[in-house]
């Protein structure tokens, strides 16, 4: 267990430093897949903690709140795997010497390492900016991993990473819709709410007079 946590710690911290050796270190650990999975789950849970205002706005109860964090961790790990697969597919289609799928999945998973600090998004004022920094940082970690996997060919790694990401975006808006439906149903089941309320709804509900609210209603009426 200690060895496992140590591998998570060393792998994450080296990945965050964009150290090409980080990926060798992770790859040398016997249960490397589990290490990467654990990093991705922790990153996803931490990120949701940072963005937990959505859970609070929807009045998710404490027990369900904790379960939601775990669920987000798992879903986040899965989404990184999909990205890894898309990168692998792109490399296979565009370049003669494609990268091995299992390695692509594992190294993309290490992209979650910066999100271990996702809870910092909670910080008032600075949180939003920190969230953006973490996104860029995560992208750079994946890019560094792919560069190392592509034998130092930065251009090929960049093309594969960006196109892979675009493929995921296109898929989630088209054939991935049923998957998104299942994901949303899972969130609904775990949180016990539709998670459809936002901070903006609070403003709309309480920051408009009854007259304004009813006139807004009339505008939308047939």
């Amino acid at each position: 267990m200690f060895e496992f946590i140590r591998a998570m710690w060393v792998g994450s911290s080296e990945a965050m430093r964009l150290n090409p050796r980080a990926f060798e270190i992770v790859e040398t650990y016997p249960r490397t897949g589990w290490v990467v999975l654990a990093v991705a789950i922790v990153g996803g849970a931490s990120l949701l903690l940072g963005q937990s205002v959505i859970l609070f706005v929807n009045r998710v109860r404490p027990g369900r709140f904790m379960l939601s964090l775990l669920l987000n961790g798992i879903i986040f790990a899965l989404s990184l795997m999909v990205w890894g697969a898309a990168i692998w597919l792109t490399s296979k289609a565009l370049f003669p010497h494609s990268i091995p799928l299992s390695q692509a999945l594992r190294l993309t998973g290490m992209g979650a390492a910066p999100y271990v600090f996702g809870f910092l998004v909670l910080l008032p004022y600075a949180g939003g900016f920190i969230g953006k920094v973490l996104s860029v940082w995560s992208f750079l970690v994946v890019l560094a991993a792919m560069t190392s996997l592509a034998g130092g060919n930065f251009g090929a790694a960049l093309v594969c990473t960006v196109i892979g990401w675009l493929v995921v975006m296109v898929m989630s808006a088209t054939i991935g819709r049923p998957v998104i439906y299942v994901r949303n149903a899972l969130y609904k089941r775990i949180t016990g709410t539709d998670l459809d309320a936002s901070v903006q709804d609070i403003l709309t509900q309480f920051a408009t007079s009854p007259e304004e609210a009813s006139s807004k209603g009339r505008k939308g009426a047939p």
Partner: protein
Amino acid sequence: MTGLILLLILGALLAPFESLGWWAGWFGEKPALPTHQATGAGEALREHPAASAVVYLSGIGAIDANSIPQEEIDWGRMAVRRLPGVLVTPDVYPYSVTNAGLTADRSFARVYRWIERRRLENPYDLLQFVINLRNLFQVAVSADRRYGPIYNLGVASEIIKALERGGYRVGSGKPVTLIGFSGGAQVSLGAATYLAPVLKAPIRVISIGGVMADDPGLNQVTRLYHLYGEADPVQKLGHWLYAGRWKWFPQSDWNRAMAAGRIEMITMGPMAHNGAKNYFGWTAFTPEGKSYAIATIDMIGYLLARDGLIDPAALQAARAANDPEARAYEAARVAEAAQARDKQRGARTV
């Protein structure tokens, strides 16, 4: 040093939970929300005859609605006497969504009580910065677009209850002026988001050295008066920290309100944010011979009279009646300060 930084980050991370947990009902109580009808809190009282109401939201040194720095208490007492014909509501603690002071039923209430005792013994006790920091984080929560709508809703609800307790009738349409010092000005702006539609009354905000963000509440205020001292760098923080106040974003709430002439920046001369020369100072004087505290009150009186919220003749009469008391109070504070200086000098020579 690292430990201190980590503690600061931890404090900032925990800051939003009070309001978020309140909204989610995690702390047992169902959130009391402002409605468009009277809440009933003022039912037992008769409607106050005043034509407008003033709510004071203290600076970040406040421990609860009543335990605020002595200088603000003295200033408030004098302000009540020099601002005739308005209903003054001082009992709102702007750094809690439930109006619960720091010494109320809280996890760290004992610590805050201890700090409060120390502050009563020595108004310059350094430990009171713990309170300042805690409240500063709440100001950041109020200004944050993710948390502000929840935080400000709680405070607005408490303001309405306090107004009703004072005899203000919801729906009367009587104008309400929120006076906020330092962080209290930001919370005033945030609360205005809800106060205007719920009270159906014009809302003005008078900021005394306020640190304010580009808050959506600006769209609901009739006027925002920002009183600032030229020796007060703290009030400039709002301008530096919140991009919506930068001139490069003309469509921001702040810049649109500025362009519409709803924000007025009023210099208070060489006043500072803290220390003897602050807006509530009794021992520093304007060239006209008014203490800074009286000058600030009189500027507020002037603005309220200019907006037709105070009868100018009544204002003059109240000032004339209060002047001897104000002069005596100033003289007593000056003598006290001189005594304290002598004592310090004596201690140094020994």
